Protein backbone atom coordinates (compact mmCIF):
# COMPACT_ATOMS: atom_id res chain seq x y z
CA UNK A 1 0.00 0.00 0.00
CA UNK A 2 2.91 2.31 0.66
CA UNK A 3 4.97 3.83 -2.12
CA UNK A 4 6.43 7.04 -3.38
CA UNK A 5 3.33 7.89 -5.41
CA UNK A 6 1.12 7.75 -2.35
CA UNK A 7 3.08 9.93 0.01
CA UNK A 8 3.24 13.62 -0.85
CA UNK A 9 6.51 15.51 -0.90
CA UNK A 10 7.95 15.29 2.65
CA UNK A 11 9.35 18.81 2.52
CA UNK A 12 5.93 20.18 1.64
CA UNK A 13 4.31 18.21 4.43
CA UNK A 14 6.91 19.31 6.96
CA UNK A 15 6.43 22.94 5.93
CA UNK A 16 2.67 22.67 6.27
CA UNK A 17 2.88 20.96 9.63
CA UNK A 18 5.14 23.70 10.95
CA UNK A 19 2.72 26.34 9.67
CA UNK A 20 -0.13 24.48 11.30
CA UNK A 21 1.71 24.25 14.62
CA UNK A 22 2.50 27.95 14.57
CA UNK A 23 -1.08 28.90 13.83
CA UNK A 24 -2.50 26.63 16.52
CA UNK A 25 -0.02 27.96 19.07
CA UNK A 26 -0.93 31.52 18.10
CA UNK A 27 -4.56 30.91 19.04
CA UNK A 28 -3.38 30.92 22.69
CA UNK A 29 -5.96 28.31 23.57
CA UNK A 30 -8.59 29.89 21.35
CA UNK A 31 -8.36 33.33 22.94
CA UNK A 32 -7.35 34.98 19.66
CA UNK A 33 -10.04 33.29 17.59
CA UNK A 34 -13.02 35.59 17.45
CA UNK A 35 -16.53 34.81 16.30
CA UNK A 36 -19.77 36.79 16.36
CA UNK A 37 -18.02 40.16 16.17
CA UNK A 38 -20.77 42.23 14.55
CA UNK A 39 -21.52 45.08 16.98
CA UNK A 40 -24.69 44.68 19.03
CA UNK A 41 -26.17 45.93 22.28
CA UNK A 42 -27.80 43.99 25.08
CA UNK A 43 -31.37 45.21 25.42
CA UNK A 44 -32.81 42.81 27.99
CA UNK A 45 -31.74 40.00 30.29
CA UNK A 46 -33.61 37.43 32.34
CA UNK A 47 -31.19 35.22 34.21
CA UNK A 48 -28.99 33.56 31.61
CA UNK A 49 -31.16 34.61 28.69
CA UNK A 50 -30.24 37.78 26.83
CA UNK A 51 -31.75 39.76 23.98
CA UNK A 52 -29.45 41.76 21.69
CA UNK A 53 -30.09 44.29 18.96
CA UNK A 54 -27.47 44.65 16.24
CA UNK A 55 -26.29 48.11 15.36
CA UNK A 56 -27.31 49.17 11.85
CA UNK A 57 -24.69 48.90 9.11
CA UNK A 58 -26.66 50.41 6.25
CA UNK A 59 -26.20 54.16 5.78
CA UNK A 60 -29.92 54.74 5.76
CA UNK A 61 -30.53 52.82 9.02
CA UNK A 62 -33.08 50.01 9.39
CA UNK A 63 -35.64 49.84 6.57
CA UNK A 64 -36.90 46.26 6.87
CA UNK A 65 -37.75 44.02 9.78
CA UNK A 66 -37.50 43.75 12.69
CA UNK A 67 -36.22 40.20 12.50
CA UNK A 68 -35.59 38.23 15.70
CA UNK A 69 -33.08 35.37 15.30
CA UNK A 70 -33.33 32.41 17.65
CA UNK A 71 -31.26 29.27 17.59
CA UNK A 72 -32.22 26.25 19.66
CA UNK A 73 -30.17 24.91 22.52
CA UNK A 74 -28.45 22.24 20.42
CA UNK A 75 -26.07 24.85 18.99
CA UNK A 76 -25.42 28.56 19.36
CA UNK A 77 -26.89 31.53 17.55
CA UNK A 78 -23.34 32.71 16.73
CA UNK A 79 -23.49 30.43 13.65
CA UNK A 80 -25.21 33.27 11.77
CA UNK A 81 -22.28 35.59 12.51
CA UNK A 82 -19.31 33.24 12.41
CA UNK A 83 -16.91 35.56 10.56
CA UNK A 84 -17.24 38.90 8.81
CA UNK A 85 -16.91 37.53 5.28
CA UNK A 86 -19.54 34.85 5.81
CA UNK A 87 -21.85 36.55 8.26
CA UNK A 88 -25.52 36.18 7.46
CA UNK A 89 -26.25 38.83 10.10
CA UNK A 90 -23.96 41.33 8.33
CA UNK A 91 -25.62 40.68 5.00
CA UNK A 92 -29.02 41.37 6.56
CA UNK A 93 -27.80 44.53 8.28
CA UNK A 94 -26.16 45.82 5.11
CA UNK A 95 -29.50 45.36 3.35
CA UNK A 96 -31.12 47.59 5.97
CA UNK A 97 -32.71 44.97 8.24
CA UNK A 98 -33.33 45.63 11.93
CA UNK A 99 -31.83 42.43 13.38
CA UNK A 100 -32.23 41.10 16.92
CA UNK A 101 -30.98 37.87 18.45
CA UNK A 102 -31.75 35.80 21.55
CA UNK A 103 -28.90 34.10 23.40
CA UNK A 104 -30.25 31.30 25.62
CA UNK A 105 -27.01 31.17 27.65
CA UNK A 106 -25.58 28.02 29.16
CA UNK A 107 -28.25 26.04 31.03
CA UNK A 108 -26.90 24.27 34.05
CA UNK A 109 -28.27 21.52 36.21
CA UNK A 110 -30.47 24.05 37.99
CA UNK A 111 -32.32 24.61 34.70
CA UNK A 112 -33.20 20.95 34.26
CA UNK A 113 -36.92 21.53 34.82
CA UNK A 114 -37.24 24.04 31.97
CA UNK A 115 -39.31 22.72 29.10
CA UNK A 116 -40.67 23.87 25.75
CA UNK A 117 -43.28 25.99 27.54
CA UNK A 118 -40.45 28.01 29.09
CA UNK A 119 -38.50 28.51 25.86
CA UNK A 120 -41.08 28.56 23.05
CA UNK A 121 -43.74 30.41 24.99
CA UNK A 122 -42.53 32.30 28.05
CA UNK A 123 -38.98 33.42 27.24
CA UNK A 124 -39.67 34.02 23.55
CA UNK A 125 -42.87 35.89 24.45
CA UNK A 126 -40.97 38.08 26.92
CA UNK A 127 -38.30 38.88 24.33
CA UNK A 128 -40.95 39.83 21.76
CA UNK A 129 -42.67 42.08 24.29
CA UNK A 130 -39.38 43.91 24.92
CA UNK A 131 -38.78 44.20 21.18
CA UNK A 132 -42.27 45.61 20.59
CA UNK A 133 -41.80 48.17 23.31
CA UNK A 134 -38.41 49.23 21.96
CA UNK A 135 -39.55 49.54 18.34
CA UNK A 136 -43.03 50.89 19.09
CA UNK A 137 -44.22 48.45 16.44
CA UNK A 138 -46.67 45.57 16.17
CA UNK A 139 -44.06 42.83 16.55
CA UNK A 140 -41.37 41.11 14.54
CA UNK A 141 -40.68 38.33 12.11
CA UNK A 142 -39.04 35.33 13.76
CA UNK A 143 -36.01 33.65 12.21
CA UNK A 144 -35.79 30.24 13.87
CA UNK A 145 -32.82 27.97 13.25
CA UNK A 146 -32.96 24.19 13.77
CA UNK A 147 -34.60 23.62 17.16
CA UNK A 148 -35.07 27.39 17.37
CA UNK A 149 -37.29 27.05 14.30
CA UNK A 150 -39.44 24.55 16.15
CA UNK A 151 -39.72 27.06 19.03
CA UNK A 152 -40.62 29.80 16.55
CA UNK A 153 -43.25 27.72 14.72
CA UNK A 154 -44.87 26.79 18.04
CA UNK A 155 -44.92 30.43 19.13
CA UNK A 156 -46.41 31.57 15.81
CA UNK A 157 -49.13 28.93 16.12
CA UNK A 158 -50.03 29.95 19.67
CA UNK A 159 -49.68 33.73 19.27
CA UNK A 160 -50.47 34.52 15.63
CA UNK A 161 -51.03 38.20 16.40
CA UNK A 162 -47.51 38.84 17.65
CA UNK A 163 -45.51 37.17 14.86
CA UNK A 164 -45.44 39.13 11.61
CA UNK A 165 -43.66 36.45 9.64
CA UNK A 166 -41.74 33.24 10.10
CA UNK A 167 -38.37 32.34 8.58
CA UNK A 168 -37.37 28.78 9.39
CA UNK A 169 -33.99 27.27 8.57
CA UNK A 170 -33.11 23.55 8.82
CA UNK A 171 -36.08 23.15 11.15
CA UNK A 172 -37.65 19.80 12.03
CA UNK A 173 -41.45 19.81 12.01
CA UNK A 174 -42.49 16.26 11.03
CA UNK A 175 -39.93 14.09 12.81
CA UNK A 176 -41.08 10.95 10.99
CA UNK A 177 -41.17 12.36 7.45
CA UNK A 178 -37.82 10.69 6.73
CA UNK A 179 -39.50 7.28 7.02
CA UNK A 180 -41.53 7.80 3.88
CA UNK A 181 -40.22 7.59 0.30
CA UNK A 182 -39.38 10.99 -1.19
CA UNK A 183 -41.14 9.93 -4.40
CA UNK A 184 -43.49 7.04 -5.22
CA UNK A 185 -41.48 3.91 -5.85
CA UNK A 186 -38.25 5.24 -4.38
CA UNK A 187 -36.88 3.77 -1.14
CA UNK A 188 -37.20 5.74 2.09
CA UNK A 189 -33.94 7.09 3.44
CA UNK A 190 -34.23 7.39 7.20
CA UNK A 191 -32.15 10.04 8.90
CA UNK A 192 -29.44 8.30 10.92
CA UNK A 193 -30.00 10.50 13.95
CA UNK A 194 -33.78 9.99 13.69
CA UNK A 195 -33.23 6.24 13.44
CA UNK A 196 -30.96 6.16 16.48
CA UNK A 197 -33.39 8.09 18.66
CA UNK A 198 -36.35 6.01 17.48
CA UNK A 199 -34.44 2.81 18.25
CA UNK A 200 -34.13 3.62 21.96
CA UNK A 201 -37.00 2.82 24.36
CA UNK A 202 -38.55 5.97 25.90
CA UNK A 203 -37.61 4.91 29.42
CA UNK A 204 -33.99 4.55 28.36
CA UNK A 205 -33.98 8.01 26.76
CA UNK A 206 -35.52 9.50 29.90
CA UNK A 207 -32.93 7.75 32.06
CA UNK A 208 -30.14 9.02 29.80
CA UNK A 209 -31.31 12.59 30.32
CA UNK A 210 -32.00 12.14 34.05
CA UNK A 211 -28.54 10.74 34.65
CA UNK A 212 -26.99 14.19 34.20
CA UNK A 213 -30.15 16.25 34.58
CA UNK A 214 -29.75 17.75 31.10
CA UNK A 215 -28.92 16.40 27.67
CA UNK A 216 -25.21 17.07 27.55
CA UNK A 217 -24.00 19.34 24.75
CA UNK A 218 -20.83 17.29 24.57
CA UNK A 219 -22.86 14.17 23.99
CA UNK A 220 -24.89 15.72 21.17
CA UNK A 221 -21.66 17.04 19.62
CA UNK A 222 -20.14 13.57 19.77
CA UNK A 223 -23.24 12.06 18.19
CA UNK A 224 -23.06 14.51 15.30
CA UNK A 225 -19.43 13.53 14.76
CA UNK A 226 -20.31 9.87 14.88
CA UNK A 227 -22.88 10.34 12.09
CA UNK A 228 -19.98 10.60 9.64
CA UNK A 229 -16.89 9.26 11.42
CA UNK A 230 -14.64 9.03 8.37
CA UNK A 231 -15.36 12.66 7.50
CA UNK A 232 -14.64 13.67 11.09
CA UNK A 233 -11.37 11.78 11.06
CA UNK A 234 -10.23 13.28 7.76
CA UNK A 235 -11.14 16.77 8.89
CA UNK A 236 -8.70 16.71 11.80
CA UNK A 237 -5.91 14.86 10.02
CA UNK A 238 -5.32 15.14 6.30
CA UNK A 239 -7.83 17.96 5.94
CA UNK A 240 -5.86 20.11 8.35
CA UNK A 241 -2.61 19.54 6.50
CA UNK A 242 -4.29 20.56 3.27
CA UNK A 243 -5.33 23.95 4.61
CA UNK A 244 -2.29 24.55 6.80
CA UNK A 245 -0.82 27.22 4.53
CA UNK A 246 -4.11 28.78 3.53
CA UNK A 247 -4.56 31.50 6.15
CA UNK A 248 -8.16 32.22 5.26
CA UNK A 249 -9.25 28.56 5.28
CA UNK A 250 -7.41 28.05 8.56
CA UNK A 251 -9.22 30.99 10.16
CA UNK A 252 -12.55 29.59 9.02
CA UNK A 253 -11.61 26.17 10.42
CA UNK A 254 -10.68 27.64 13.80
CA UNK A 255 -13.83 29.75 13.99
CA UNK A 256 -15.97 26.76 13.17
CA UNK A 257 -14.16 24.73 15.85
CA UNK A 258 -14.78 27.44 18.38
CA UNK A 259 -18.48 27.33 17.53
CA UNK A 260 -18.57 23.53 17.66
CA UNK A 261 -16.86 23.45 21.06
CA UNK A 262 -19.41 25.84 22.53
CA UNK A 263 -22.43 23.56 22.59
CA UNK A 264 -24.85 24.20 25.47
CA UNK A 265 -26.72 21.50 27.37
CA UNK A 266 -30.40 21.05 26.61
CA UNK A 267 -32.39 21.30 29.88
CA UNK A 268 -33.74 17.92 30.97
CA UNK A 269 -37.47 18.56 30.68
CA UNK A 270 -37.08 20.16 27.24
CA UNK A 271 -34.77 17.31 26.19
CA UNK A 272 -37.39 14.69 27.04
CA UNK A 273 -40.03 16.58 25.06
CA UNK A 274 -37.59 16.86 22.17
CA UNK A 275 -36.43 13.24 22.13
CA UNK A 276 -39.57 11.40 23.22
CA UNK A 277 -42.45 13.76 22.41
CA UNK A 278 -41.09 14.85 19.04
CA UNK A 279 -38.42 12.47 17.70
CA UNK A 280 -40.26 9.37 18.91
CA UNK A 281 -43.94 10.26 19.10
CA UNK A 282 -44.00 13.02 16.49
CA UNK A 283 -46.56 14.91 18.53
CA UNK A 284 -46.26 18.25 16.76
CA UNK A 285 -47.80 17.03 13.49
CA UNK A 286 -50.34 14.91 15.34
CA UNK A 287 -51.58 17.95 17.27
CA UNK A 288 -50.82 16.33 20.63
CA UNK A 289 -47.74 18.34 21.62
CA UNK A 290 -48.69 20.48 24.60
CA UNK A 291 -47.47 23.92 25.63
CA UNK A 292 -48.74 25.32 28.93
CA UNK A 293 -51.16 22.42 29.01
CA UNK A 294 -52.72 23.17 25.62
CA UNK A 295 -52.20 21.28 22.35
CA UNK A 296 -50.29 23.11 19.61
CA UNK A 297 -52.03 23.38 16.24
CA UNK A 298 -49.49 24.32 13.56
CA UNK A 299 -52.41 24.92 11.21
CA UNK A 300 -53.13 28.05 13.28
CA UNK A 301 -50.06 29.77 11.82
CA UNK A 302 -51.42 32.70 9.81
CA UNK A 303 -48.29 34.74 9.01
CA UNK A 304 -46.20 34.35 5.83
CA UNK A 305 -43.60 31.58 6.09
CA UNK A 306 -40.20 31.21 4.40
CA UNK A 307 -38.83 27.71 4.94
CA UNK A 308 -35.13 27.11 4.15
CA UNK A 309 -33.61 23.63 4.12
CA UNK A 310 -30.31 22.03 3.11
CA UNK A 311 -30.59 19.44 0.36
CA UNK A 312 -27.67 17.46 1.86
CA UNK A 313 -28.63 17.97 5.50
CA UNK A 314 -27.78 14.72 7.35
CA UNK A 315 -28.92 16.05 10.73
CA UNK A 316 -32.40 17.30 9.80
CA UNK A 317 -33.50 15.37 6.68
CA UNK A 318 -35.20 17.77 4.21
CA UNK A 319 -38.60 15.99 4.30
CA UNK A 320 -38.78 16.68 8.06
CA UNK A 321 -38.54 20.43 7.35
CA UNK A 322 -40.62 20.55 4.19
CA UNK A 323 -43.58 18.92 5.93
CA UNK A 324 -44.69 22.37 7.12
CA UNK A 325 -45.76 23.19 3.57
CA UNK A 326 -48.13 20.23 3.66
CA UNK A 327 -49.61 21.44 6.93
CA UNK A 328 -50.07 25.05 5.81
CA UNK A 329 -51.56 24.12 2.44
CA UNK A 330 -52.14 27.08 0.12
CA UNK A 331 -51.29 29.76 2.61
CA UNK A 332 -48.42 32.26 2.10
CA UNK A 333 -45.64 29.69 2.19
CA UNK A 334 -42.34 29.62 0.30
CA UNK A 335 -39.47 27.12 0.29
CA UNK A 336 -35.81 27.73 -0.44
CA UNK A 337 -33.43 24.83 -1.04
CA UNK A 338 -29.74 25.36 -0.33
CA UNK A 339 -27.33 22.89 -2.00
CA UNK A 340 -25.58 22.25 1.30
CA UNK A 341 -25.65 20.32 4.55
CA UNK A 342 -26.99 21.51 7.90
CA UNK A 343 -24.43 24.15 8.84
CA UNK A 344 -23.55 24.94 5.24
CA UNK A 345 -26.87 26.78 4.89
CA UNK A 346 -25.30 29.59 6.95
CA UNK A 347 -21.59 29.47 6.10
CA UNK A 348 -21.14 27.75 2.74
CA UNK A 349 -20.07 29.65 -0.36
CA UNK A 350 -22.70 27.66 -2.25
CA UNK A 351 -25.47 29.07 -0.06
CA UNK A 352 -24.13 32.61 0.03
CA UNK A 353 -26.04 33.85 -2.98
CA UNK A 354 -29.20 31.93 -2.12
CA UNK A 355 -30.07 32.22 1.56
CA UNK A 356 -29.36 35.86 2.46
CA UNK A 357 -30.92 37.33 -0.72
CA UNK A 358 -34.03 35.17 -0.21
CA UNK A 359 -34.50 36.39 3.36
CA UNK A 360 -33.90 40.02 2.38
CA UNK A 361 -36.37 39.82 -0.51
CA UNK A 362 -38.93 38.08 1.70
CA UNK A 363 -38.51 40.63 4.52
CA UNK A 364 -38.88 43.53 2.10
CA UNK A 365 -42.14 42.04 0.81
CA UNK A 366 -43.33 41.69 4.40
CA UNK A 367 -43.09 45.47 4.74
Amino acid at each position, binding site marked *: *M*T*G*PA*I*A*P*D*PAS*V*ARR*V*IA*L*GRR*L*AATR*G*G*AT*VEIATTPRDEVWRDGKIRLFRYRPLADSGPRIGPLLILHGLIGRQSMTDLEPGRSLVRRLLEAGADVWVIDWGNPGR*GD*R*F*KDFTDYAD*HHLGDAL*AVLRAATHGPGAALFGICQGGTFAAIHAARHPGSVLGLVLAVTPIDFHADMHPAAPGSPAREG*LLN*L*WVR*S*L*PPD*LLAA*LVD*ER*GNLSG*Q*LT*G*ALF*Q*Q*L*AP*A*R*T*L*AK*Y*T*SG*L*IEIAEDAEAMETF*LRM*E*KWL*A*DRPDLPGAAAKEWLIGLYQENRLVHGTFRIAGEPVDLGAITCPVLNIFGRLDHIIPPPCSRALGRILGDRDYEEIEAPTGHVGVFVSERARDIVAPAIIRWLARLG
Partner: protein
Amino acid sequence: MSEQGDADRDPFRLWQQSSRAFLDSTAMPESFRERCAALFAAWTRFARTYAEASGAAGPAAAGGPFDPVSWMDAGGAGGFGDLWNWFGAGTGSDPSSAGRSFVHGSAEWLAYAAALDRYRGVLAAAWLRAFQRFAAELGKYGKAPDWQRIQRLWQSAADVELDLAQRSEDFLDAQREVIRARLALAAVLRKHTGKLAELLGLPTRAELDDLQEAVHALRRELRALRPRLDPER
Protein backbone atom coordinates in the same frame (compact mmCIF):
# COMPACT_ATOMS: atom_id res chain seq x y z
CA MET B 1 -2.31 -11.93 11.15
CA SER B 2 0.18 -11.78 13.96
CA GLU B 3 -1.11 -11.15 17.45
CA GLN B 4 1.73 -8.89 18.43
CA GLY B 5 4.90 -7.42 17.01
CA ASP B 6 5.58 -6.59 13.39
CA ALA B 7 2.41 -4.58 13.41
CA ASP B 8 3.82 -2.14 10.90
CA ARG B 9 4.03 -4.98 8.37
CA ASP B 10 0.52 -6.17 9.00
CA PRO B 11 -1.95 -3.60 7.70
CA PHE B 12 -4.99 -5.48 8.89
CA ARG B 13 -3.70 -5.62 12.42
CA LEU B 14 -2.77 -1.96 12.27
CA TRP B 15 -6.19 -1.22 10.95
CA GLN B 16 -7.85 -3.01 13.80
CA GLN B 17 -5.66 -1.14 16.26
CA SER B 18 -6.64 2.18 14.81
CA SER B 19 -10.31 1.28 14.74
CA ARG B 20 -10.07 0.21 18.32
CA ALA B 21 -8.38 3.44 19.30
CA PHE B 22 -11.02 5.48 17.55
CA LEU B 23 -13.79 3.55 19.20
CA ASP B 24 -12.10 3.74 22.59
CA SER B 25 -12.37 7.47 22.35
CA THR B 26 -15.65 9.17 23.15
CA ALA B 27 -15.15 12.18 20.90
CA MET B 28 -16.12 14.58 23.63
CA PRO B 29 -13.63 17.43 23.57
CA GLU B 30 -13.98 19.50 26.70
CA SER B 31 -13.30 22.93 25.36
CA PHE B 32 -11.86 24.83 22.48
CA ARG B 33 -8.76 25.57 24.52
CA GLU B 34 -8.10 21.88 25.05
CA ARG B 35 -8.78 21.15 21.40
CA CYS B 36 -6.17 23.64 20.28
CA ALA B 37 -3.63 22.56 22.85
CA ALA B 38 -4.06 18.90 21.98
CA LEU B 39 -3.92 19.56 18.26
CA PHE B 40 -0.78 21.62 18.69
CA ALA B 41 0.89 18.88 20.72
CA ALA B 42 -0.19 16.22 18.28
CA TRP B 43 1.05 18.02 15.22
CA THR B 44 4.32 18.97 16.86
CA ARG B 45 5.01 15.35 17.64
CA PHE B 46 3.86 14.31 14.24
CA ALA B 47 6.20 16.78 12.54
CA ARG B 48 9.14 15.44 14.49
CA THR B 49 8.28 11.81 13.92
CA TYR B 50 7.59 12.35 10.26
CA ALA B 51 10.76 14.33 9.70
CA GLU B 52 12.86 11.68 11.46
CA ALA B 53 11.26 8.86 9.52
CA SER B 54 11.57 10.67 6.22
CA GLY B 55 15.18 11.53 6.89
CA ALA B 56 16.06 8.01 7.90
CA ALA B 57 14.36 5.94 5.28
CA GLY B 58 12.69 8.18 2.71
CA PRO B 59 9.01 8.73 2.15
CA ALA B 60 8.26 5.29 0.76
CA ALA B 61 9.43 3.49 3.86
CA ALA B 62 7.99 6.02 6.24
CA GLY B 63 4.57 6.05 4.73
CA GLY B 64 3.00 9.49 4.79
CA PRO B 65 0.27 11.42 6.48
CA PHE B 66 -2.09 10.54 3.66
CA ASP B 67 -1.13 6.92 3.53
CA PRO B 68 -3.80 5.05 5.51
CA VAL B 69 -1.19 2.76 7.00
CA SER B 70 0.32 5.68 8.87
CA TRP B 71 -3.06 6.63 10.27
CA MET B 72 -3.05 3.44 12.21
CA ASP B 73 -0.43 4.26 14.77
CA ALA B 74 -2.75 4.49 17.71
CA GLY B 75 -0.25 3.85 20.46
CA GLY B 76 0.54 7.46 21.19
CA ALA B 77 4.20 7.07 20.27
CA GLY B 78 3.79 9.03 17.06
CA GLY B 79 1.64 12.01 16.20
CA PHE B 80 -1.66 10.39 15.42
CA GLY B 81 -1.76 8.61 18.73
CA ASP B 82 -2.15 12.02 20.28
CA LEU B 83 -5.01 12.74 17.98
CA TRP B 84 -6.77 9.59 19.08
CA ASN B 85 -6.31 10.73 22.64
CA TRP B 86 -7.57 14.13 21.68
CA PHE B 87 -10.75 12.61 20.36
CA GLY B 88 -11.18 11.09 23.78
CA ALA B 89 -10.35 14.39 25.49
CA GLY B 90 -8.45 12.66 28.25
CA THR B 91 -9.77 10.61 31.07
CA GLY B 92 -12.28 13.27 32.06
CA SER B 93 -14.66 12.03 29.42
CA ASP B 94 -14.32 8.42 30.43
CA PRO B 95 -17.52 7.84 32.32
CA SER B 96 -16.14 4.96 34.26
CA SER B 97 -12.67 6.08 35.29
CA ALA B 98 -13.69 8.25 38.23
CA GLY B 99 -15.20 5.48 40.23
CA ARG B 100 -13.59 2.46 38.71
CA SER B 101 -12.07 1.42 41.98
CA PHE B 102 -15.50 1.40 43.61
CA VAL B 103 -17.11 -0.86 41.11
CA HIS B 104 -14.46 -3.15 39.65
CA GLY B 105 -15.83 -6.63 39.95
CA SER B 106 -19.43 -5.53 40.46
CA ALA B 107 -22.11 -7.06 38.28
CA GLU B 108 -22.76 -3.65 36.73
CA TRP B 109 -19.12 -3.20 35.80
CA LEU B 110 -18.91 -6.62 34.19
CA ALA B 111 -22.14 -6.02 32.26
CA TYR B 112 -20.85 -2.63 31.09
CA ALA B 113 -17.50 -4.03 29.99
CA ALA B 114 -19.24 -6.80 28.04
CA ALA B 115 -21.70 -4.38 26.39
CA LEU B 116 -18.91 -1.99 25.49
CA ASP B 117 -16.87 -4.80 23.95
CA ARG B 118 -19.82 -5.86 21.85
CA TYR B 119 -20.47 -2.29 20.71
CA ARG B 120 -16.84 -1.81 19.79
CA GLY B 121 -16.83 -5.15 18.03
CA VAL B 122 -19.71 -4.17 15.75
CA LEU B 123 -17.96 -0.95 14.80
CA ALA B 124 -14.51 -2.50 14.50
CA ALA B 125 -15.93 -5.00 12.02
CA ALA B 126 -17.34 -2.10 10.03
CA TRP B 127 -13.99 -0.32 9.97
CA LEU B 128 -12.39 -3.52 8.80
CA ARG B 129 -14.95 -3.88 6.00
CA ALA B 130 -14.27 -0.25 5.09
CA PHE B 131 -10.59 -1.03 4.77
CA GLN B 132 -11.32 -4.08 2.64
CA ARG B 133 -13.58 -2.04 0.38
CA PHE B 134 -10.91 0.65 0.17
CA ALA B 135 -8.21 -1.90 -0.64
CA ALA B 136 -10.39 -3.46 -3.35
CA GLU B 137 -11.02 -0.03 -4.91
CA LEU B 138 -7.35 0.83 -4.75
CA GLY B 139 -6.50 -2.48 -6.39
CA LYS B 140 -8.38 -1.42 -9.52
CA TYR B 141 -5.69 1.15 -10.29
CA GLY B 142 -2.74 0.06 -12.41
CA LYS B 143 -0.37 2.26 -10.47
CA ALA B 144 -0.83 4.01 -7.17
CA PRO B 145 -2.95 7.16 -7.64
CA ASP B 146 -2.08 10.46 -6.02
CA TRP B 147 -2.80 10.95 -2.36
CA GLN B 148 -5.84 13.13 -2.89
CA ARG B 149 -7.57 10.41 -4.85
CA ILE B 150 -6.51 7.86 -2.26
CA GLN B 151 -8.03 9.98 0.44
CA ARG B 152 -11.28 10.35 -1.46
CA LEU B 153 -11.40 6.61 -2.05
CA TRP B 154 -10.82 5.92 1.62
CA GLN B 155 -13.42 8.36 2.85
CA SER B 156 -16.00 7.13 0.41
CA ALA B 157 -15.39 3.49 1.40
CA ALA B 158 -15.53 4.29 5.10
CA ASP B 159 -18.65 6.44 4.75
CA VAL B 160 -20.51 3.65 2.97
CA GLU B 161 -19.51 0.89 5.39
CA LEU B 162 -19.98 2.90 8.57
CA ASP B 163 -23.36 4.15 7.41
CA LEU B 164 -24.49 0.60 6.65
CA ALA B 165 -23.19 -0.65 9.98
CA GLN B 166 -24.68 2.15 12.04
CA ARG B 167 -28.11 1.44 10.58
CA SER B 168 -27.94 -2.30 11.23
CA GLU B 169 -30.07 -3.96 13.91
CA ASP B 170 -26.88 -5.42 15.35
CA PHE B 171 -25.49 -1.93 15.95
CA LEU B 172 -28.76 -0.50 17.25
CA ASP B 173 -29.09 -3.35 19.72
CA ALA B 174 -25.47 -3.00 20.85
CA GLN B 175 -26.00 0.75 21.28
CA ARG B 176 -29.12 0.21 23.39
CA GLU B 177 -27.29 -2.26 25.60
CA VAL B 178 -24.19 -0.16 26.12
CA ILE B 179 -26.32 2.84 27.13
CA ARG B 180 -28.37 0.70 29.49
CA ALA B 181 -25.25 -0.81 31.06
CA ARG B 182 -23.54 2.56 31.28
CA LEU B 183 -26.53 4.05 33.13
CA ALA B 184 -26.66 1.10 35.53
CA LEU B 185 -22.99 1.58 36.28
CA ALA B 186 -23.48 5.30 36.83
CA ALA B 187 -26.27 4.50 39.29
CA VAL B 188 -23.84 2.41 41.34
CA LEU B 189 -21.34 5.27 41.35
CA ARG B 190 -24.05 7.70 42.40
CA LYS B 191 -25.06 5.47 45.26
CA HIS B 192 -21.50 5.47 46.58
CA THR B 193 -21.19 9.23 46.16
CA GLY B 194 -24.54 9.78 47.89
CA LYS B 195 -23.36 7.78 50.89
CA LEU B 196 -20.18 9.86 51.06
CA ALA B 197 -22.18 13.10 50.87
CA GLU B 198 -24.42 11.88 53.66
CA LEU B 199 -21.41 11.03 55.78
CA LEU B 200 -19.95 14.51 55.29
CA GLY B 201 -23.28 16.26 55.83
CA LEU B 202 -23.39 17.60 52.25
CA PRO B 203 -26.66 17.94 50.34
CA THR B 204 -27.21 15.08 47.92
CA ARG B 205 -28.01 15.57 44.26
CA ALA B 206 -31.59 14.48 44.84
CA GLU B 207 -32.02 17.12 47.56
CA LEU B 208 -30.67 19.87 45.30
CA ASP B 209 -32.95 18.68 42.50
CA ASP B 210 -35.95 19.01 44.81
CA LEU B 211 -34.93 22.56 45.62
CA GLN B 212 -34.49 23.50 41.97
CA GLU B 213 -37.83 21.97 41.05
CA ALA B 214 -39.50 24.08 43.73
CA VAL B 215 -37.81 27.25 42.40
CA HIS B 216 -38.97 26.47 38.88
CA ALA B 217 -42.56 25.90 40.05
CA LEU B 218 -42.48 29.18 42.00
CA ARG B 219 -41.29 31.09 38.93
CA ARG B 220 -44.18 29.63 36.96
CA GLU B 221 -46.65 30.70 39.65
CA LEU B 222 -45.15 34.18 39.72
CA ARG B 223 -45.53 34.45 35.96
CA ALA B 224 -49.17 33.40 36.18
CA LEU B 225 -49.75 36.18 38.73
CA ARG B 226 -48.03 38.84 36.65
CA PRO B 227 -51.09 40.00 34.64
CA ARG B 228 -52.90 40.70 37.90
CA LEU B 229 -49.95 42.65 39.29
CA ASP B 230 -49.30 44.58 36.07
CA PRO B 231 -52.45 44.75 33.91
CA GLU B 232 -50.72 47.10 31.40
CA ARG B 233 -48.26 44.43 30.37
